Each structure stands twice: as C-alpha cells, then as structure tokens.
C-alpha cells in the first residue's frame, strides 16, 4: 500500500512543480502527472476493496484466501496480453468496427441527402423536422428490444441501433448547415446564373460541407459509444460482448478493464481519422478559428 501512496504524492508534487516550466513541457508533464495520480488512486482502491475469504476444509483446517475483485492496473496488463494473444481482441474489435462503420455509413448515406433536402426546401423541413426532433431524444438503446425482436441476435440488430445513434446528429447537423449558409453566397451564385442542381453542387453542398464533417465526427463518436451497449444485449461478439461476457464467465474484471481500455483507444483512433477530413482544402476554411 506504500508504493501507490508515494506515486500519488510524487505525481501531485511534480505537477505543481511543472507549472514553472515552459508551456510545451507543461503540456507533456501535467497530463502525465494526472494520469499517474489516477493510476495510483485506482491501485489503492483495488487494494482497499480486497477481502479475506475463510473456509473450513474437510479436515477441520481453516484456509484463508485473499480475494481481489477489482483489478489493479498491474492486473490488467496480463489480461491485455491474454486477449491479444488468443485472438479475441482482434476478432472482437473487427466485429465492433464492422457494425459501427456499417451503421454509420448507412446513416450518412440517408442522413446527408435528407438533411440537404430539408435544409434547402422549407416544405421538406416542415414535414420531417418535428419527427426528427421527436425521435432524437429517445436513446438508441431503448430500441434494443425492438431491434432484437425484428432482426434477432444478429449483426443487423446492432447495426440498426448504431444507425439510429448516428442518423440524428447527421440529419440535424446537415439541415442546420444548409439553413445557415450566408445569403451572400447564394446571391453570388444566382447573380452568376447558377440554379437548380448546379447551385446545389457548386454552392449549397460545399458551403455546408464543414458542418457536415463536424456532424459526421459527432455521429461516429455516438456510434462507437452505442456499439458497446448494443453488443451487450443484441449480439454475442464484439468488444461490448467481451465486457459483459468477461464478467458473466467467472468475474474476470481484469478482462473487463482490458476491454474497456481497448474500446477507448479504438475510439480515439476513429476520431483522429475523421479529423483528417477537416484538413482538406474544400473544408479547411470552415475550421479557421480552431487549431
């Protein structure tokens, strides 16, 4: 119990001391100190929740075992190695990614055209907006029973739930993007004789594109959040299934935490990938005030 306390105190001290350094050094040191402090606190919590289990053997001897239900950071490292080496990590990660990308792609293919149309045509907006706003606050997870009823314990059920999670941010974001196009762009275009599809292709779509990219980024984030819950209920593979399965099959909380870490890292990777889009010449102007 001494080591984590020392680490915690040291992390806090180094953190305080680091504020004298340059911005760059701080940007490196401060989050490292926070992470170390959290790891130490986690370790202490694991150790503090240990308990002794006494059992009387057949010969009358009393055996005492130390039970640690909550894994320490050290316990999760072998669990990660276990998941990586028996192939479960790769298999389940691929299953989860497949579902998220399918649901997300479906949401984008339907949501972007629908959002463009509704953003541009007042009548379409009036027709669908109340419905969109009414369905949006229903958590996609509430659809799990219906999804399972309709599709069975299948990929389709999970994809449907992810589709719902990604669809609403995309359609709402795209609608808003089109509605907030500055009048001066549309007037310039009309002035130079653009109309109909050409106006759409040359002005409406490119003008809305940065905000569409932002909504895609949000939607993919939601999709990745939702897949875990969907896989806990609607299918029997994937990282979400791994989390719930590791608990149900012998309280392997080390595997639970290892799977959680994998979920987090892949989520960061997905977000990083979408952010590459923001650097394209065609949309970069829309992110001018961000770094």
């Amino acid at each position: 119990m001494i080591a984590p306390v020392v680490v915690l105190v040291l992390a806090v001290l180094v953190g305080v001391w680091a504020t004298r350094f340059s911005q760059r050094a701080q940007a490196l040191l401060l989050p490292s100190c926070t992470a170390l402090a959290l790891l130490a606190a986690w370790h202490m919590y694991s150790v503090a929740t240990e308990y002794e289990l006494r059992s009387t053997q057949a010969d009358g001897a009393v055996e005492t075992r130390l039970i640690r239900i909550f894994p320490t950071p050290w316990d999760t490292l072998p669990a990660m190695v276990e998941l990586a080496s028996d192939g479960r990590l790769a298999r389940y990660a691929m299953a989860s990614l497949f579902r998220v990308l399918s649901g997300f792609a479906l949401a984008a293919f339907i949501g972007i055209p629908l959002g463009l149309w509704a953003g541009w045509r007042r009548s379409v907006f009036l027709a669908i907006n109340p419905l969109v706003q009414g369905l949006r606050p229903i958590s996609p997870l509430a659809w799990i029973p219906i999804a399972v009823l309709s599709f069975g314990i299948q990929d389709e059920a999970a994809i449907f739930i992810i589709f719902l999670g990604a669809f609403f941010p995309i359609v709402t974001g795209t609608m808003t993007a089109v509605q907030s196009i500055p009048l001066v762009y549309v007037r310039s275009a009309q002035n130079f004789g653009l109309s109909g599809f050409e106006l759409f292709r040359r002005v409406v779509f490119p003008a809305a594109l940065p905000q569409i990219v932002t909504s895609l980024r949000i939607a993919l984030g939601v999709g990745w959040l939702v897949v875990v819950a969907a896989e806990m209920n609607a299918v029997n593979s994937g990282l979400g299934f791994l989390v719930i399965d590791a608990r149900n099959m012998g309280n392997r909380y080390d595997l639970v935490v290892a799977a959680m870490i994998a979920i987090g890292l892949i989520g960061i990777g997905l977000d990083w990938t979408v952010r590459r889009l923001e650097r394209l010449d065609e949309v970069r102007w829309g992110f001018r005030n961000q770094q």
Partner: protein
Amino acid sequence: MKESTPKIRVRGASKTFLRGEQRVEALAPVDLEVRAGEFVCLLGPSGCGKSTLMNLIGGFEAPSGGSIEIDGLPVAGPDPRRVFVFQEYGIFPWASVWDNIALGLRDLPKAEQERIVAQHIELVGLKGFEKSFPDQLSGGMRQRVAVARALAVSPDIVYMDEPLGALDSLTRLQLRGEIHRLWKRGGMTILFVTHDVEEALQLADRIVVMSPRPGRIQEIVEVGMPHPRTSATPGWAEKESHLLRLLGVGG
C-alpha cells in the same frame, strides 16, 4: 433618340418590409436615372436605404411600388450581365482563386475559360495565386478576386456594395485607384454604395446623397472634376463640405 435612353431608370421605386406586425419603410419612392458608362455613388449613413436601392436595381428584391428598368426592360431578377461585388464573403472560400474567377465562365469552352481567367488574374495583380484559397489571402486580395470574378464575365453594369468597407485604410486607397483604372477602360456602368465622402468624391461622376427614416434621395451632386482627383484638386473642398453638410456633419 436612342442615346437619351438611360441605362438604368428607377421610377417611384419603394420598399416596405414587414417586421412582425410593423411595416418598416426602408425606401420611400425614389427616382433615378443612370447613363451608360457612368460611375454613380450612392452615399449616405447606414439605414438610408442605399443597399436596398441597389438590391432592387440588381434584381435580388422586388420593389413594393414603382418600376425599375434597365435598357428599357423591367428588371426581373439577378442577371449575369450585371454583377455584384459584395463587401465581404462574396467569393467562395471552398474554391481556389482560379475556380472563383471562372464561376461565370462555366459555359465557355475550356481554352476560352483559361484565357479569360488568366487575363483577369493579371488585371488585378494576382499572378502566382491561382491555386490559393481565399483563407490564405489578405482582405484586399480577396476583394481583387471578387472584382476579377465580376469583370471576367464582361458585365455592362457592376454593382459594388461597400466593396472596400472591410479593408484597412491603405489597402482601401490602393484598391480605390484600381477600381477607377478598371472603370476607365470603358464599357462599364458602375453603381457604388459607400458611406465614405472622400471615396465618393474620388470615384464618382455623380453622387446620390441619401438620408434615412425613411430612406430617400436627398440630392444628386454632379462632381465634374477631372481625374486623377485629390483633396488638392480645385473644387474638392467646396464639394466635400457641401456633401458633409447634406449628411448633417461639419459646417
């Protein structure tokens, strides 16, 4: 007599908006005639209806009363032969300088487009920036792109809605000179909205002084001084103080 037909004829044109339950008279009935090839400034404080009047003439809005004719025909809407240069953001940030300038030329053969775009990039001094995007350019350069985009279609009227309003004062002076130079090549009628007395005096053949609440034409001032004009040009000081007096500032 054909020559006496004005390029632009505004007769009793007015504009009223509905703001909630309230009727706002943005422009009281005005009369105005502009000759072909003339440079006319609409001068006045904000809210005097000068942009409204130009949007009516440009066809972006329909007048509530009266009529507007160009070349003897009523204005039905925006027209690629009569091009706007807006104060800001008129050019497309998602397109390169080249693509922006080529906007009005998209129906021409490729080779013809290339020739005209290159010529107009040269004309506004943006050679070397063809592939740049607007967010990589200064405000003055962006307005040069807007001017080049407008001139590339060989318009017979150019509407300029405070095109220099968002620029720093040095760039403003420089672009003012260039707009005059481009107009002097001939063939274009320019309608130029500004609230800058000096800008109007330097550029315009006639200055239409407008006043607010409701927007209306107060007086039309003939400038009649030879170019190039500076504050040392004979007659400048009198005209300037007359204009300022009309605008309700200075003695």
